[in-house]
């Protein structure tokens, strides 16, 4: 976590080539990219450098997830021919101390001093647009040629009767816990809800997970959601899909919650409630109307494929405008903005192969199109699937759950998209992203030599399956004839 309240704001240089509102992943990436190209950059932040990802999102959650995996592995030792250690005790304060330590360590890379040293003019305070080419921070007026809004998003506060009174956690404060809740209700089966439900279950909480949709991770493939649902159940999570949370009340020390599926109400008593039902863009108080920037308090700031807002001087990137709220997508968007805003670029966000990952166990990663999207565009699509239980290294590691699915334009080797469900799906997807970015087809992936045994062989096996399928009967006959003499 890093902030610099003692630092004096920079003296304005006018006009800035790029004024950035928000020092999260998108703002920081844009600032660095722009200043390295010689631009005059102003960066305005009202809270913490690093944004949600560093301070309240990815970094703390991945840290706690890694500890929770360790506990799961200890309990599963027998499956590996080992002995379950006696007296497994979760020292929750130590777990959270590790979260804070790692957050601080990574946060050191993003300091006010380092930004200043880089040449970024940093301003702490509330940014407000006061015209189409100027904004204010306190009493300081900053003029700009181009601007980037990267203010991010905040957790949605669901309107459930009694929830506010009972109190609840979100990703913004769950990592401030000092005790592991004995009984935890997680509302929301998106990435945040699933990741943290599993982590807390493995750390000893009795977890109930309620999701309004009939499947977890609403946008992901059915088969991925099915595997995740099974995995969460194996961790002992009490799963309630297609279930609405309708009421919360306090009874003694308990938070008592009504969960309704169809016409059946089930009541659970818990110690804590964690809400992960999505995010809302931070657009309030920015004076966007003065800048001619259209916005919606639910959907955020509309942008075109070049990430331009309705004011062509002003761009937006990250959670404040995009649907897929992952930090690396913000970073990709930031680089597009720098190119398009400052260097007459014509880069499109839709041209990028941007993978994402939900860090449950198994992880669920995706890049490119889903089959349904392809079919909606009348693109004939075929999927080459390799189950992880077909992969030798996954078997040796006891990590057989999951699959690699490569979606290909039928009759060609062109990769349209891919979904990977595996213990390390977030790493495996990168090879496919590289292939898509470089325009490599499955013939090339099938030729890639890999050390044996590795889990990434699943990708080569899927590519091999494609090559095999392309061998027509005629060619097989030809090969047989050739080899017959």
């Amino acid at each position, binding site marked *: 976590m890093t902030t610099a309240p003692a630092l004096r704001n920079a003296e304005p240089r006018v006009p800035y080539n790029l004024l950035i509102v928000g020092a999260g992943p998108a703002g920081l990436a844009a600032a660095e990219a722009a200043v390295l190209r010689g631009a005059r950059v102003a960066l305005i932040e009202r809270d913490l450098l690093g944004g949600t990802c560093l301070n309240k999102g990815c970094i703390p959650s991945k840290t706690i997830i890694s500890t929770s995996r360790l506990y799961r592995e200890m309990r599963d030792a027998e499956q590996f021919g080992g002995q379950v250690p006696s007296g497994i005790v979760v020292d929750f304060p130590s777990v959270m101390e590790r979260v804070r330590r790692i957050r601080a360590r990574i946060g050191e890379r993003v300091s006010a001093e380092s930004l200043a040293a880089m040449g970024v003019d940093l301003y702490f305070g509330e940014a407000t647009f006061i015209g189409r080419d100027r904004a204010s921070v306190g009493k300081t007026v900053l003029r700009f040629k181009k601007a980037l809004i990267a203010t991010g998003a905040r957790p949605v506060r669901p309107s459930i009767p009694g929830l506010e009174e009972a109190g609840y956690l979100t990703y913004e404060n769950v990592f401030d816990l000092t005790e592991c809740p004995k009984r935890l209700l997680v509302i929301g089966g998106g990435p945040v809800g699933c990741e943290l439900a599993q982590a807390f279950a493995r750390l000893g909480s009795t977890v109930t997970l309620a999701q309004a949709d009939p499947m977890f991770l609403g946008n992901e493939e059915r088969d991925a959601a099915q595997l995740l649902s099974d995995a969460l159940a194996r961790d002992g999570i009490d799963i309630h899909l297609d279930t609405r949370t309708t009421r919360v009340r306090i009874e003694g020390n308990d938070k008592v919650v009504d969960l309704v599926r169809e016409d059946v109400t089930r009541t659970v008593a818990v110690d804590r409630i964690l809400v992960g039902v999505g995010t809302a863009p931070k657009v309030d108080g920015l004076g966007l109307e003065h800048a001619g920037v259209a916005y919606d308090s639910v959907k955020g700031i509309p942008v075109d494929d070049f990430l331009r807002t309705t004011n062509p001087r002003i761009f937006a990137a990250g959670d404040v405008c995009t649907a897929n709220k992952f930090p690396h997508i913000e970073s990709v968007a930031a680089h597009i903005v720098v190119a398009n805003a400052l260097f007459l670029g014509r880069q499109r966000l839709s041209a990028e192969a941007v993978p994402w990952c939900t860090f449950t166990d198994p992880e669920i990663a995706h890049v490119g199109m889903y*089959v349904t999207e392809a079919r909606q565009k009348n693109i004939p699509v075929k999927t080459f699937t390799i189950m992880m239980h077909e992969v030798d290294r996954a078997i040796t590691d006891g990590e057989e759950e999951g699959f690699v699915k490569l979606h290909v334009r039928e009759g060609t080797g062109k990769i349209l998209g891919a979904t990977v469900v595996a213990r390390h799906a977030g790493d495996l997807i990168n090879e496919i992203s590289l292939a898509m970015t470089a325009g490599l087809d499955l013939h090339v992936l099938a030729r890639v030599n890999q050390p044996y045994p590795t889990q990434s062989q699943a990708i080569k096996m899927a590519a091999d399956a494609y090559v095999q399928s392309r061998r027509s009967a005629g060619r097989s006959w030809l090969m047989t004839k050739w080899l017959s003499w």
Partner: protein
Amino acid sequence: MLDDELLDRLQRGAFEYFVEETNPANGLVADTSRKDSPASIAVVGLALSAYPVAVERGWVSREDAAARTLVTLRFFESSAQSALPDATGQHGFYYHFLSMESGKRVWQCELSPIDTTLLLAGILTGSEYFSHPTSAEAEIRALARELYGRIEWDWARNGKATVAQGWKPECGFLNYGWQGYNEAALLYVLGLASPTHPLPRASYAAWTATYQWERIYGCDLLYAGPLFIHQFSHAWIDFRRIQDSFMREKDSDYFENSRRAVDVQREYARRDPNEYGTYGKDCWGFSAGDGPGLGTVRVRGRARRFFEYTARGVPYGPDDGTIAPAATLASLPFASALVLSAMRRFLELYPEWAETWRLPSGFNRTAPGADPRGWISEGSYGLDQGIAVLMIENYRSGLIWKLMRNCSPIRAGLTRAGFEGGWL
């Protein structure tokens, strides 16, 4: 024992379920043979389809079968169709589970388009088979037309592109979030052909829009995990060599697809990724069915989770070690040699099944149970027995397929869904 003799015994054993578990006063058939089981409208549909088989096999007389059919159709024609929560149905559809005696809704269950479809398929089968100019058979045909005509298929879309999975008076339309291939082909075919409240053609395209054509274990197929999805519409529709636009694009058909599904199931069983050690080339059959329902239990040092009744599927799961032998049997028309081989293996493992020749809903040789061979589902399920009777008959004589090839709603619905070729 010769194959045909084996199949004859299995088919007769399965049919006897309907003799034993039917209320002769209203034709309703119990969902399971367990005490106090309500009727399932889907099982009634299978029973109605099984009666012509029984006539042709000489197990019941034509008059007896017609009388059974007529009692059933008269019950549905006169049953309460209203907004009352204990009515038998509404909008022409029926509630999934009914009281065996009164025929009223039980268990606060859903008004079910898919189960109404299976009931209707049975009604139409009877209508096609009982074609003689007797008063009883003429009444069967008239009632079938009436019952079909009053189903408001388009209402069941709830204004959306595809048909909802159910409706309850207490909470309205249900949303199970179905994606991909499922057992609803027959529903869309009959809904598209409705003379009174048809589904729009676009609904079929919307239903197939989430299909995935996958290569799994070297097989190209339209994937669905549980076997029953590859079987239920096939009990009535002969999908050999007829193609909709999706299958034309893939140069395949749904019959061939069901055969490939068997290959995937057997390959999964061979691999046995969860290391149950109880599967094999002749021990497969992952589908919807009863289960041990033990929750999480440690077995031989490993935590195992055993489900109750659920739709098991492979390779994505869930797989708790449970085999549904009736689902294996119902793949007979697609892969007869493999199915017969599996049946002989099952009877080696459980020779007592030959006492009644009726397969249980499931067995699980990993789950601890009263039997030293593991858990075995108690009694029998009507869906299992019905699909066994029909699929064995389709394999042996093609009787149901032949009847339904002449069924004008089936022909019209298939045509409106874009099917061409073969017998169409």
